[in-house]
């Protein structure tokens, strides 16, 4: 809400010593936040004066234009007192008119410096200004012609045009709709600023009593439209200009002046907060009827949009059909125009909820709608309509029709029962009941009772409905800045949960392993999933869709972290990172067949079953860990060549994380997108596949702009977190000597090393302390289709030194089992 300061002080007196900064600081502290103070003439410097046109010679030019060579009296403002010669392209003035002249040395908005310059064969010493050139709206039709009594030539023109006016912008909270008016702002000044006095309520005026002579109005939906006031004027001059002060104030408020009739309705809305609608009365056919629309009825609104209406929309109709969307926007057929001479003024009170729904349904945001949906004073319809009629006839002539239509009565305000000490208890401040009552009365409430207060809010405060609302009023007037600072003493807490600690550990482990954490958006689209090479039936293609995604290319909630990670990796590569390793730990969204989440009551705690139904309606959102690495895992240097990242690094990164949680993961071959079908490991915790790791499919590397042989992994951390080892018993170790046995086993290339190792482990028996595969050999010595696996076995007994030959026997037993299970032959 923007308003000139002078408009505010039209309704309330502020002591002279209160500066604008002090005034706005005070209002900010009580709830009207200052957004900014601007002055329309802030960008204009130098001489800007009133000039009287003395002579004016039209001079046709070769380019078809006609310019006027003028002499203008600016008195002593030019230093000489001689008439000023100025070339002007506009024609909407005549000798004798008072105009606005910027003299050489002046600067207009946009840094436009004025100097005497040669043009069209004359030296033009300055410029006669239009409103647009001064930054006052976008009217380029001609220069400003000041009223004949506006002032004397040579006089500074700024005060006359309101250019030195301070325009204050307030941010108005949704609950303070009353402050979307000068009436409300002035009242806030009265209660907030010390020494402010003399509030003059613009909505407090004598209005003629209702009679039957007015335009007939029937309200069929009293709940939707409790009050409908109609007044009429005839013989109005549609060409009458809007008075400068009204135009300036509308412009300051950010509303474009259009015509006197429209401007006056807007002006009264800003003044009183009551939206007004004006109809061309001559275009109305028969009585006005207010009702709900019938589903599917149509209306073309003022903005030219044809709208299909819902049965919930409130409409204004006449014999011709629907003529307006009540309280939200008028219709085209009865719109006021440049030929309107009879105006029917509507000031009606509308149901706020209905206004909100209609505005949202039809995506209409208007100044009227904004006020109607937040709550307007229902008691000022007659006053507002009367004010409109007064302004229209004052500036546009015509006669006030004696008919005064008033349908309905304003709804009464509720009584709020609140403890007198509630504000004190809530704020922690020492607020006496007397102070609380005084504050409530200051904002317009009627208060009775002691100990327990009965509070009736004023009609302009429909936002006050609960004890907590009146409590806020009291505390804000006492002053939020007086609330002391007291740290509450929490009972001993339990610290971070185990899961929270483990998640931190996962992040630190990944960073320790050389990976850089990134944060990505969880939105995904088919193109991403195609780029991963996911087959058509891959469950990761089933995403939870958004109704209103930011991009139609990513309308789903992702089921996998990989697309965003691969894109991020590709972006880094594009920026010149030849090697990189990134990770993210974030939830993914896995839809499941579920019913809707019920909208539960709010007047009681839902039952556990109801809450359960809410949770059941939500998708699974498991925490995943994703990683991508490309290029060199260890870089080249003086120590030798670098080492390109391999599938094994991806597997090991996940195993390192699992290890940090006390878990060991097994692997087995898998053929899962987006991985290389021969270089992808399924990672298993026991029998449960928790994720996959390996080298990316070459096509995926290409699709995301990654170097060949880039690697990736993705695991479900939920399973790992669930099984993370807690309270591990301390180990004990044998102090007896170790016996080492190495074996090299030749197997078919297709045999998994893990299977050979498992067989060895089983065959070796209890004396086996550890086993480690330390070499894999393929080549001539083992023959085609074969590989040799070299294992180091360590044997030790817990309670004695092994006897001669004991470890060899265990080794032989191990080799035997490996031979039986996997066809392994010792080399």
């Amino acid at each position, binding site marked *: 809400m923007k308003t000139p300061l002078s408009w505010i002080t039209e309704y309330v007196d502020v002591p002279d010593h209160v500066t604008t900064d002090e005034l706005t600081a005070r209002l900010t*502290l009580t709830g009207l*936040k200052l957004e900014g103070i601007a002055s329309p003439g802030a960008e204009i410097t130098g001489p800007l004066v009133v000039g009287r046109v003395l002579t004016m010679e039209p001079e046709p030019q070769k380019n078809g234009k006609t310019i006027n060579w003028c002499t203008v009296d600016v008195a002593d403002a030019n230093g000489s007192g001689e008439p000023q010669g100025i070339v002007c392209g506009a024609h909407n003035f005549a000798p004798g008119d008072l105009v606005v002249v910027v003299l050489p040395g002046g600067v207009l908005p946009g840094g436009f410096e004025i100097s005497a310059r040669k043009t069209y064969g004359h030296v033009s010493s300055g410029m006669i200004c239009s409103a647009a050139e001064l930054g006052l709206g976008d009217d380029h039709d001609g220069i400003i012609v000041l009223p004949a009594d506006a002032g004397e030539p040579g006089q500074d023109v700024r005060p006359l045009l309101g250019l030195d006016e301070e325009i204050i912008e307030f941010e108005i*909270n*949704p609950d303070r709709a009353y402050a979307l008016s000068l009436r409300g702002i002035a009242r806030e000044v009265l209660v907030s600023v010390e020494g402010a006095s003399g509030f003059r309520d613009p909505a407090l005026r004598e209005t003629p009593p209702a009679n039957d002579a007015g335009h007939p109005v029937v309200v069929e939906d009293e709940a939707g439209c409790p009050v409908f006031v109609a007044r009429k004027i005839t013989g109005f001059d549609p060409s009458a200009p809007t008075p400068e002060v009204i135009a300036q104030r509308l412009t300051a408020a950010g509303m474009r002046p259009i015509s006197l009739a429209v401007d006056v309705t807007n002006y009264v809305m800003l003044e009183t907060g009551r939206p007004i609608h004006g109809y061309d009365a001559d275009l109305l056919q028969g009585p006005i009827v207010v009702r709900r629309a019938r589903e599917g009825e149509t209306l073309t609104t003022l903005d030219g949009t044809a709208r299909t209406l819902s049965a919930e929309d409130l409409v204004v109709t006449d014999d011709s059909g629907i003529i307006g969307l009540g309280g939200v926007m008028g219709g085209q057929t009865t719109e006021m125009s440049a030929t309107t001479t009879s105006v029917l003024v509507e000031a009606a009170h509308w149901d706020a909820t209905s206004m*909100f729904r209609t505005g949202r349904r039809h995506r209409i945001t208007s100044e009227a709608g904004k006020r109607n949906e937040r709550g307007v004073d229902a008691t000022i319809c007659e006053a507002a309509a009367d004010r409109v009629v007064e302004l229209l006839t004052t500036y546009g002539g015509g006669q006030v029709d004696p008919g005064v239509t008033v349908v309905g009565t304003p709804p009464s305000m509720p009584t709020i029962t609140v403890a007198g000490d509630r504000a004190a*208890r*809530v704020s922690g*401040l020492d607020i006496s009941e007397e102070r609380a009552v005084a504050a409530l009365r200051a904002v317009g409430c009627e208060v009775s009772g002691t100990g327990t207060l009965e509070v009736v809010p004023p009609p302009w405060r429909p936002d006050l409905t*609960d004890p*907590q609302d009146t409590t*806020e009023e009291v*505390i*804000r007037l006492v002053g939020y*800045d007086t*609330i*002391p*600072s*007291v*740290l*509450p003493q*929490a009972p*001993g*807490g339990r610290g*971070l949960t185990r899961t*929270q600690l483990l998640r*931190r550990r996962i992040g630190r482990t990944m*960073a320790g392993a*050389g990976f*850089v*954490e*990134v*944060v990505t*958006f*969880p*939105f995904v689209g088919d193109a991403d999933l195609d780029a991963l090479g996911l087959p058509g039936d891959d469950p990761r293609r089933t995403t*939870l*869709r958004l*109704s*209103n995604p*930011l991009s139609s290319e990513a309308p789903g909630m992702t089921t996998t972290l990989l697309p965003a990670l691969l894109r*991020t990796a590709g972006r880094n590569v594009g*920026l010149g*990172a030849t*090697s990189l390793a*990134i990770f993210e730990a974030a939830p993914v*969204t896995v839809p499941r067949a579920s019913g809707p*989440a*019920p*909208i*539960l009551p*709010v*007047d*009681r*705690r839902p039952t556990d079953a109801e809450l359960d139904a*809410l949770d059941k*309606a939500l998708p699974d959102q498991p925490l995943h860990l994703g990683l991508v690495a490309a290029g060199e895992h*260890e*870089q080249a*240097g*003086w120590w030798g060549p670098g080492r390109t990242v391999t599938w094994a690094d991806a597997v090991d990164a996940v195993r390192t994380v699992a290890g940090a949680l006390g878990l060991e993961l097994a692997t087995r071959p898998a053929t899962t997108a987006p991985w290389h079908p021969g270089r992808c490991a399924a990672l298993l915790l026991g029998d449960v596949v928790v994720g996959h790791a390996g080298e990316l499919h070459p096509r995926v590397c290409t699709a995301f702009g990654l170097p060949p042989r880039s690697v990736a992994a993705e695991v479900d951390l939920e399973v790992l977190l669930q099984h993370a080892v807690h309270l591990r018993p301390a180990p004990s170790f044998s102090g007896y000597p170790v016996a080492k046995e190495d074996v090299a086993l030749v197997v078919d290339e297709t045999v998994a090393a893990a299977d050979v190792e498992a067989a060895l482990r089983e065959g070796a028996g209890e004396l086996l302390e550890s086993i480690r595969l330390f070499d894999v050999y393929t080549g001539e010595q083992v023959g085609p289709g074969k590989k040799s696996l070299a294992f180091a076995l360590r044997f030790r007994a817990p309670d004695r030194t092994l006897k001669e030959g004991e470890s060899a026997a265990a080794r032989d037993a191990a080799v035997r089992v490996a031979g039986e299970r996997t066809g392994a032959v010792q080399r």
Partner: protein
Amino acid sequence: MSGPNTEYDPVEVTPLKADEVEAMRDAAIAAISAAPDLEALKTVRLEHVGDRSPLALANREIGALPPQARKDAGQRVGQARGAVNKALAERQVQLEAEHEERMLVEETVDVTLPTDRVRRGSRHPITLQSELVADIFVAMGWEIAEGPVVEAEWLNFDALNLGPDHPARTMQDTFWTEPADHHVVLRTQTSPVQARTMLTRKPPIYVACPGRVFRTDEYDATHSPMFHQVEGLVVDEGITMAHLKGSLDHLASQLFGDGIDTRFRPSYFPFTEPSAEVDVRCFVCRGIDSASCRTCRGEGWIEWGGCGVVNPRVLVACGIDPDTYSGFAFGMGIDRSFMFRHTLEDLRPLFEGDVRFSSAFGSEI
């Protein structure tokens, strides 16, 4: 080797001659000290101390002496061998020390060579900032509550006093999921976690809820469809706005430095009533000579978040008796706090995953 001689043998044997024993000793000692290195010392050891060395041979002869002569000869040869062994041991130590010293000099490397064989990893600054904030609350005895990102409409709105027709719903641009009649949204705030906490726990409740939230904002320098928030909730007996102020002042001083406090301005949030905007004192200029301060743009204060006294309607919907308990709640952007704490003017680097950005913060902020 001959056994001890039990018979008198008139032959005069070497050990009896003191000067010869001394000569052997001196020759050995001279050779030892002349040995230039450990290798040479090894040869000297063979020559003068080994089984065939003169002193060893002399020693062997002692047994052949008449008993009356043995003691004297044994003493003489023993002393000589002792002196030689001692000299040998000393020379051994000396030469080893010299060898080690030389070897260490030879093995000198250029320690200014790069050592970055394996790249450093790092964590994301927003993760770190969230953990920092969580730790501040945990230190106050609060706990960290969490909840789902894809959330039931009722928990994101209705339970928080944002009914279906509440004008404030238009303040938040919500991502809705399909089908619309399933009433599932991407949470627009972490407040549903507060509701979940109140629904499942009994007061006293002291929790903070950090997490990611979503709004349908176009992505630009100051808006992101996904960002991070932390909200706090306290429900206990006798909780007032003073406790709210105290908690926020504490958080501000912990995050931004001693003496950094907050101020309240009346505001409106359906979840709370009374409600306030909370500004944090600019930690750069501290509100003194703010005019040229870029961090607060001359205001002396920085808009930080919203807060207020939990609306009794919310307590009722969450099953808490508003006559017994009262509470406060607040919320602020983690990204935003990070941005002004680290003078970042464009939030996009937080979500673009340029490794240079995260790497700059390492694993601690």
